[in-house]
């Protein structure tokens, strides 16, 4: 649906639906912190940003030039072949046979445990990511500035 709908706004809304489904999977896997972060960051912030950009460009009507049909067919066929090969690989793999992802148990996904590890062992990457955010903010402003 994300790539079949002609209207970019519909595409964004379908992508929001996909993110909600992925958050549901996180909750099922008892990774509640990641579920909430996924909802807030992706479905909240990033998708609203996409919607703003689409509306800023006035793309509501379909103005996308159509690509050659053969090119589309080739893209779909190559993607389908990749999917088939990978799925058959997974089905044949004996290494992962019988392994089970535990559902609704285990407490590694809770905020307390994640926070302890994050601020004990991963402090330096955390700070580096804050610097990355600062530089991304400055970069976005500099690029988007009207000049």
């Amino acid at each position, binding site marked *: 649906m994300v790539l079949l709908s002609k209207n970019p706004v519909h595409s964004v809304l379908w992508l929001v639906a996909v993110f909600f489904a992925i958050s549901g999977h996180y909750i099922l896997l008892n990774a509640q912190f990641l579920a909430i*972060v996924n909802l807030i960051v992706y479905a909240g912030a990033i998708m609203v940003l996409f919607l703003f950009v689409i509306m800023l460009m006035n793309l509501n009507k379909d103005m996308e030039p159509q690509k050659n049909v053969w090119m589309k067919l080739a893209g779909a066929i190559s993607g389908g072949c990749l999917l088939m090969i990978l799925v058959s690989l997974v089905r044949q793999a004996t290494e992962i046979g019988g392994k089970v992802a535990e559902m609704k148990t285990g407490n590694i996904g809770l905020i307390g445990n994640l926070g302890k590890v994050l601020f004990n062992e991963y402090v330096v990457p955390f700070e580096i990511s804050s610097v990355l955010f600062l530089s991304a903010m400055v970069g976005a402003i500099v690029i988007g500035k009207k000049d």
Partner: protein
Amino acid sequence: MPIQYYIILSLALFCIGIVGVLVRRNVIIVFMCVELMLNAVNLLLVAFSKMHHGLAVVNDKATTVGTDAQLFVFFIMVVAAAEVSVGLAIIVMMYRNTHSVDVNFLNRLKN
């Protein structure tokens, strides 16, 4: 739930993202498909972390195996947010210059 189901779900999402990147010509939709691929990888990382935790918790009740993977997912989300902001700024700039969102307009970068 067996881990194969999660792997196949993630593969399906990833391949949908790849087909979208190959097929569509709208820059914004191509960008959204990249986000879809990132999310597929995140889902797979969380599933594997729960799998390893489930295997390790049998021997040791208080183990914290698998916390690292969830923090990796957290950092992937952080980097993706920064990347989206810069990428959308670039797209807006490109639209302002060319009045189009067609990827093929970027061909002229090579001259």
